[in-house]
């Protein structure tokens, strides 16, 4: 049995009673990483020296008032597109291979206030562009449930590290499904908060109108604790929302009597694997037995979400990634006699194929003569997709469906054709376009690979999303299943 089989509130209790020290938690983490990370390859950088010295300092505070916070002393992994001062942050890109940030992201500052301990930085698809973590410039993370399959992406390292028991929880980021899809593939809990709930300051921007940082955990309760710690208005991010942050853990009542669930027919339609469908229908039965009701609804513009997403996210990315020019930080080409060649060759040598493809698509969609036909058109369709959700939420409390159309696929299976890879995200992308919160919780196994149930809520109603996810989790055993490594 691993210490990390305990949920955070139990670990907190063990620390409080001094049955376990913070140093024990940190050693547990590095021990497990030593045992399994050569196979799983979730981490890009470890911060052992600092983690150990911080643990020693925190151990001296054990038992005092200063150790009362629930996250005190908990080891955490952080996706490598969230900047950490003096701790290498690469976005899994060669262009940032030697980049040591000079400040901490707001979420990292908040974690420091809560006195968590950063174990290391987690692998991802380069600049968060991908659905399998195969686009990392450094290594391919494996799914702990089956090392021949992908962990999902782009937060593949964040999900695989939690599933493999290397850390009890982690942070990921989600632009089109990048927390929920790997959480689903790896059998863990992953939430994309409402756009604006969590500050993006210090998250290396991919698509600024879609990106959100969110928690990856083993249980819904742990997830709520972590979101609590990182939420809130931030003067450094003008898109962070000035709304009250409720007590998320208090929402975990287990009571879903009278809850109205909408199940979009488009989410159980063509392209969705039969076993995935069956596990969602079985999950709905569980929620029914707890007193909820469900009805089929339509989100009629769902089929347009993927095209809308690729136009908008790539356009935003092409602007955001313009900053990587070899001048102020990051890789600089040795092959340039003038400034223009310095830009062009630095970027050609520093970026991977998928990143280049999206920069090209975005530049095209924003270029003179095509802006109205592609970029502006996609922005208008985004309005229609958002309205689909608003219409359904007039009558229903949550939307429920699968997180992904299939379980985890084989490494290399979908790398040759970008469109096939993009299809993975058809059920998660609309949620980012609408800006609403969505969670993935384990809901079954198919040939030994986890499946995820997606629960989507209204803007800033993570509380209801958590309440439903928690009630479902407590009524089932799926979250207790662990990969054999």
């Amino acid at each position: 049995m691993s210490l990390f089989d305990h949920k955070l509130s139990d670990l907190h209790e063990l620390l409080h009673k001094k049955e376990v020290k913070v140093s024990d938690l940190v050693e547990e983490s590095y021990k497990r990483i030593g045992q399994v990370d050569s196979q799983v390859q979730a981490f890009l950088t470890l911060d052992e020296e600092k983690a150990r010295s911080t643990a020693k300092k925190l151990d001296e505070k054990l038992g005092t008032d200063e150790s009362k916070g629930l996250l005190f002393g908990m080891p955490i992994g952080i996706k490598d597109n969230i900047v950490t001062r003096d701790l290498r942050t690469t976005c899994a890109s060669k262009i940032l291979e030697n980049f040591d940030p000079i400040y901490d992201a707001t979420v990292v500052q908040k974690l420091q206030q809560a006195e968590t301990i950063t174990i290391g930085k987690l692998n991802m698809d380069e600049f968060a562009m991908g659905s399998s973590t195969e686009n990392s410039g450094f290594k391919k993370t494996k799914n702990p449930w089956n090392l021949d399959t992908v962990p999902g992406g782009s937060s593949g390292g964040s999900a695989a590290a939690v599933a493999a028991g290397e850390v009890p929880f982690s942070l990921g980021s989600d632009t089109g499904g990048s927390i929920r899809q790997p959480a689903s593939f790896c059998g863990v809990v992953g939430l994309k908060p409402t756009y604006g709930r969590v500050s993006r300051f210090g998250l290396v921007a991919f698509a600024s109108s879609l990106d959100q940082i969110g928690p990856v955990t083993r249980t819904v309760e742990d997830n709520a604790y972590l979101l609590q710690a990182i939420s809130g208005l931030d003067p450094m991010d003008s898109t962070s929302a000035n709304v009250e942050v409720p007590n998320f853990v208090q929402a975990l009542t287990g009571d879903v009597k009278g809850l109205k669930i909408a199940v979009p027919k488009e989410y159980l339609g063509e392209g969705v694997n039969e076993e995935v469908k069956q596990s969602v229908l079985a999950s709905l039965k569980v929620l029914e037995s707890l007193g909820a009701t469900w009805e089929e609804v339509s989100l009629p513009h769902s089929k347009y979400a993927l095209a809308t997403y690729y136009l908008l996210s790539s356009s935003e990315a092409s602007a955001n990634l313009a900053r990587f020019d070899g001048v102020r930080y990051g890789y600089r080409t040795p092959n340039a006699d003038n400034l223009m060649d310095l830009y062009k060759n630095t970027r050609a040598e520093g970026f991977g194929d998928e990143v280049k493809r999206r920069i090209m698509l975005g530049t095209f969609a924003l270029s003179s003569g095509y802006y109205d036909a592609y970029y502006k058109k996609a922005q208008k369709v985004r309005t229609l997709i958002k309205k689909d959700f608003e219409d359904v939420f007039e009558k229903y409390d949550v939307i429920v469906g699968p997180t992904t159309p299939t379980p985890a696929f084989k490494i290399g299976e979908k790398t040759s054709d970008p469109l096939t890879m993009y299809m993975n995200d058809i059920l998660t992308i609309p949620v980012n376009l609408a800006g609403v919160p969505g969670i993935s919780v384990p809901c079954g196994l198919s040939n030994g690979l986890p499946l995820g149930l997606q629960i989507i809520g209204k803007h800033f109603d993570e509380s209801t999303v958590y309440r439903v996810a928690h009630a479902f989790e407590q009524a089932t055993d799926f979250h207790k299943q662990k990969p054999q490594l």
Partner: protein
Amino acid sequence: MSRISTDQVKHVANLARLSITEDEAQNFTKHLDAIITFAEQLNELDTDNVEPTSHVLDMKNVMREDVPKEGLPREDVLKNAPDHVDGQIRVPSIIE
């Protein structure tokens, strides 16, 4: 019919400040053409009277007081610069 030509791809690569080889230009033409063709399904929708969404939350300009603050220390800013001299970032000469 092809939606995008290799010449257009080279033009876009120049706008994006990416040097590309002839092979890459061919490849990008193929991939971008497939993605753009896929994206044209959006034309099935009549969006004449639809407002574009650039931001999902109902937010207006976010203002704050204009208070001067200390900037970043120079050594921090230069720490990651690939080439710097006398406290300044160096690039190839830009004036002939």
